[in-house]
């Protein structure tokens, strides 16, 4: 297995605040890596740096072509679901309309939203919008898929469907990196968890191991906050 993503010593400062203080991160094909950490620990920022949306102040990012699914989806509001999916293949990759549409339909079907192909984003539920956003990201066939808080807009039943979808994607040889604050979801569906605290990686490994027997105080605090939030 090869690395779809290698991050070394990533540093990032915003104003006087050091957000990332030297983060290392890898993701291999077939892996589902979960980034966890308290709010403000820099999880989302790491995804944005990897995607090239934010410049880093130091360190090294080697990433394959990236697809990203945002927490709030950011579907193109003026286009139908299927047009959201076909726009980049047709305009960037110069794929024919017919080919792009066939592929988009297949992706939407596969994700269970084929029947919503002609709906506008504002007409979709949170879960539907998220799956359209995944289809849009996959349409350009990126080896590395980033997902920011993918469970945030889902009810528990949908969470399980999403987990299955992520496994299926990983099984096709992609690397997935997601941020999440949902310990149960990470335990059930991630292949590896990376815990961030204060701009550094404090603990990483098998999700059952790390979340079942947290070694670092930050991980324990994270789980406590998570439990408190659930109650």
């Amino acid at each position: 297995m090869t690395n779809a993503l290698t991050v070394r010593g990533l540093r990032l400062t915003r104003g006087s605040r050091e957000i990332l203080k030297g983060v290392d991160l890898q993701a291999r094909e077939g892996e589902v890596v979960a980034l966890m950490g308290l709010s403000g620990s820099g999880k989302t920022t790491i995804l944005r740096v990897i995607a090239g949306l934010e410049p880093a102040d130091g360190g090294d990012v080697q990433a394959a072509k990236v697809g990203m699914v945002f927490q709030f989806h950011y579907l193109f509001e003026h286009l139908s679901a299927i047009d959201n999916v076909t726009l980049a293949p047709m305009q960037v990759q110069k794929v024919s309309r017919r080919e792009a549409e066939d592929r988009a339909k297949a992706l939407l079907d596969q994700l269970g939203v084929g029947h919503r192909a002609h709906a506008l984003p504002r007409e979709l539920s949170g879960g539907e919008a998220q799956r359209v956003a995944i289809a849009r990201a996959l349409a350009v066939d990126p080896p590395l898929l980033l997902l920011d808080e993918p469970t945030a807009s889902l009810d528990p039943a949908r969470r399980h469907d999403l987990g299955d979808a992520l496994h299926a994607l990983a099984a096709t040889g992609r690397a997935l990196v997601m941020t999440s604050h949902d310990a149960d979801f990470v335990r059930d569906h991630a292949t590896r968890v990376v815990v961030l605290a204060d701009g550094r990686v404090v603990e990483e490994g098998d999700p059952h191991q790390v979340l079942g027997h947290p070694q670092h105080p930050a991980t324990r605090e994270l789980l406590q906050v998570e439990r408190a939030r659930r109650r």
Partner: protein
Amino acid sequence: MLFRLLVISAAAASLLPAPAMAQPQVLRWGGDAEGGAPFVEADPSDPSKLTGFDVEIAELIARKLGRTPQFLQVQFTSLDQSARRGDFDIGLSGIEDIPARRASLAASIPYYEFREVMTVRDGDRDRYRSLADLRGRKVATLGGTIAYDLLLEAERSHGLTAVSYDDDVHPYSDLLLGRVDAVVLDNVLADRAMRRNPGLATHADALATGHYIIITAPENTQLRDQVDAILREAMRDGTLEAIFRKWNVWNDDQPRLFARVAESGQSGSEPVASPAISSATMRYLPSLLRAAIVTLVLSCLAMALAVALGMSIAIGRVYGGPIIRLVLTVYVEVMRGTPVLLQLFVIYYGLAAVIRLPAFIAALLGLGLNYAAYESEIYRSALEAVPRGQLDAARILGFSRGQTLRLIRAPQAFRLALAPMTNDFVALLKDSSLVSMLTVVELTKQTQIFATNIGSWVVPGLLCAVLYLAMSLPLGHLARRLEARWRLPTP
């Protein structure tokens, strides 16, 4: 400028309650000093004073009535309405004797006889000898005059195009510039234009004759009768002749007129059957509809120009470098910060020495360039209102900056801009009435001509309002439907 101030102060003064007295001490007389010599003009040596034969006649009347003359500046085309409102006691400023005026106002006996004459460029003297020679050509005159009616008839009989101006100076300057090929106006104006503009020739033959009269409010027949008596006396004792001689407008027509007036012994204002409003409306309806089409076509083209240019400016201001941004900002501020009327004048008359734009093109450019400044601000804020996340998503998918703008940002911005754009289009539809200053006869101008000819604003005003609403209401409806269809979720 000075006269504008006079208007304002006079208008303000007329708002105050008049002191109750049997015989007012002041004789307010209305006229248009923009018309200039020899009627009424600011004294070149002292612009606060007025000179002209109409000024002297007004002073004569005031003196005979034992009152002090006080001038009120009124736009020539508004003199009738202003008299009816009672803004002034008597009005005189080369006011022509036409039936509609006699029907709706108290009018004096005629005090001067003029000939409608045709003026052409020197070189065309032999080519254009009568209106029949001007088929397919443009002929200019002052709107709402006998000469204008004459030209409207010649449009039908000789196939020329009548061009109506709001003043009597620009017809002649546009004649020299080649924008029109002849001017038909009365001999007094033609003589003055010949003195001012070398290179013009006037054919002396009268196309028609007409008379100047003095007007008062319709109910003020007592004052009108006093004015008639004073005029008759001035005709008999040579006072009027002396005034006309002083201003170089005395000729053989006048003694004949004076004799006729003395013989008739009648008051000036024999009630003349007013043209029936319904028949006048039927007569004017086609031209009102044509003028509404001019308004609509002009507004649509100007808006298209404003939208295209406004989008380019907005994109330049959002994406451009500092120099481009500065230049565009200056453009927007200058166009927004100066009156569109001034811009229209500069484009049509100011640039005439460099480029002689046809009136419609000048109007289109003036409105389009002006509205582009407003549109650009709408698009700029709309572009900036497209959520950052949309641009992030586009970037990760590999779209170039140009593609992102064309495929994602601009289409979304356009939807945000739709409501304010519709608003501006309706405003433009109404602002397009300003281009009548450039001789384009659009809806408001045609309404004004209609109103002047029948001597009332009620029916023309209503028709005009209905036509404007017929244009703007469907537009607002369409915009609301599009908006509903494109409604963006609240972020």
